[in-house]
């Protein structure tokens, strides 16, 4: 399998590559990374979960740091611009949980005087978070149910249903579609940006 893949790519490289450096990754090598999902759901892995399942997982694995509902601490507080209800895409919540949660309690970043170097993280290139895809879907469902109120407790959230969720604040983002960015498109920056009152 690997040999065949390599042979195919070598043939392709010979035609188009300039420097012939690097090697084509295997599926396993890509899976070892945290592939970013797009808002349209592309890149989301197989798996599913409900808010009901997510509540149990949250109590077991998350509440210790985030409080019983998640609203008690940090980035998920209700009164910040980062509150979940302001987020434009549900896929972002999935990605945040998937990529940022620590592998173990010992790894939880501490406030205070820790050495700058994280000696426990010696091989960033292949480390993953501690949660399965099913758990991440369930936790995402739990937060969408309890904190945003856009799904029901037993709705199944998976790679198909998650990107279809309409987040209530999405329509307020300007430009509505930021895809076509150009240098200098926001001349003066803050001169044209005003705060929420």
């Amino acid at each position: 399998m690997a040999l065949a893949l390599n042979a195919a790519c070598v043939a392709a490289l010979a035609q188009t590559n300039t420097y012939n450096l690097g090697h084509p990754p295997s599926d396993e090598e890509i899976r070892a990374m945290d592939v970013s999902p797009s808002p349209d759901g592309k890149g989301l892995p197989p798996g599913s979960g409900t808010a009901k399942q997510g509540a149990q997982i949250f109590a077991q694995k998350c509440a210790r740091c985030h409080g019983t509902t998640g609203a008690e601490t940090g980035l998920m507080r209700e009164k910040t611009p980062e509150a979940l209800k302001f987020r434009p895409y549900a896929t972002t919540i999935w990605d945040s949980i998937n990529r940022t949660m620590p592998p173990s309690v010992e790894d939880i970043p501490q406030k205070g005087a820790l050495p700058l170097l994280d000696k426990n993280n010696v091989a960033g290139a292949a480390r993953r978070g501690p949660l399965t895809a099913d758990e991440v879907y369930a936790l995402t469902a739990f937060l969408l149910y309890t904190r945003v109120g856009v799904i029901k407790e037993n709705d199944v959230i998976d790679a198909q249903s998650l990107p279809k969720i309409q987040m209530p604040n999405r329509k307020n983002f300007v430009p509505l579609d930021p895809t076509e960015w150009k240098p200098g498109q926001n001349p003066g920056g803050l001169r044209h940006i005003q705060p929420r009152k």
Partner: protein
Amino acid sequence: MKQILKQSGRRRFLKDGAIVAGLAAAGAGAIRSASGQTPASDDLRPKDTRAYGERSRFETTARLPDSPSAYLLRAPLQDSMGIITASSLYMMRAHGHRAPDIDPRQHRLLIHGMVDRPLIFTMDEIKRFPSVSRIHFLACAGNSYLNEDDRKNAKTVQQTHGKTSCAEWTGVLLSVLLKEAGLQKGANWIVAEGSEWAKWARSTPLVKAMDDAMVAYGQNGEALRPEQGYPLRLIVPGFEGGFSPKWLRRIQVGSGPFMTRPESSRYVNHRPDGREQWFNPELEPNSVITRPSGGQQMHGRGFVEITGLAWSGGGAVRRVEVSTDAGKTWKDAQLQDPILRFAHTRFRFPWSWNGEEAVLLSRCTDERGEVQPSLAELTQLWGVNREYWLSTNNAIQHINVIQPWKVTREGSVQNAIWES
């Protein structure tokens, strides 16, 4: 001893290289367990202190760690000279996550997504590409005390503007790597991801990624420092610092922004009409006088060289003006060569202090003609009152207002932003 360490390191590289390259049956778990368990005792740094230089014991300038988080270190701009920030003094910001202790022999960069040939590179391979060295500043989107808890108490330029620094970076242009992988039709954005534990990720428009973004392994003539992304980081010149992930391990090409958490929440500006202004990555023209600046003491009347730094995400600094009378009159400062795009620019202004109270200001104009505003101007434009800046809970990014330093008759220099 050194020889033995070298050999064991080479064996480890070969072993891991074989696993990573061979792969077929190996799942993610196998790759994880095989990766990088470099013992802490495997410290290859020379023990002879002559071999790697130290500064004089009389020199004390240092970064200012933010409390209580240890992951924000402000650069001592008050002591800065020229436009290069020493690597040991370079500002550092990471969102609650320390620098991973990466063995470069085990580090990989994956480029995938909407490309014809997904590729994984070792560090050795990345260094074999044609290299470039460029001088660029980095600045946090929130490089201003106006949106922070201590906004009433900031005294020094390190506290007000210390979240910017400037270095010479060496690496390979990202465009070279992306062309190597072959961009597919419809490719329009990339997302870049770090190796630290929360794996910071930001989306960058392809037009910028192909223009001047670089994948850097060198800083100021040596390898990146661990807290600057060793062994590899992205540099996206002129954009908010968060667009340049450290400990870079993965670049994914897509058709649109990936909507990571920072770009769709934390770095969104909120408007009074309820709208959310997002994807505003270019930093505005900015400048600050670094000497004399808050907390410093004048050394008597007579000649004083006013000096400071200016920068802009719009390109090169075209002009810096200085006022010594709280903005009643302005005169052009001298700009020190080199004046580079997306780099700190040093300005100097000869002045004679007569012993009376004075308020010193600097004002930057960039190559696009954008001018740095005063706080009063911004307050008016935003339709808010002065109290808003002291009380808002909104994290306001991109504050670039003119910084006033007041020189008292006694010769002390104080932050006068709330008097301006």
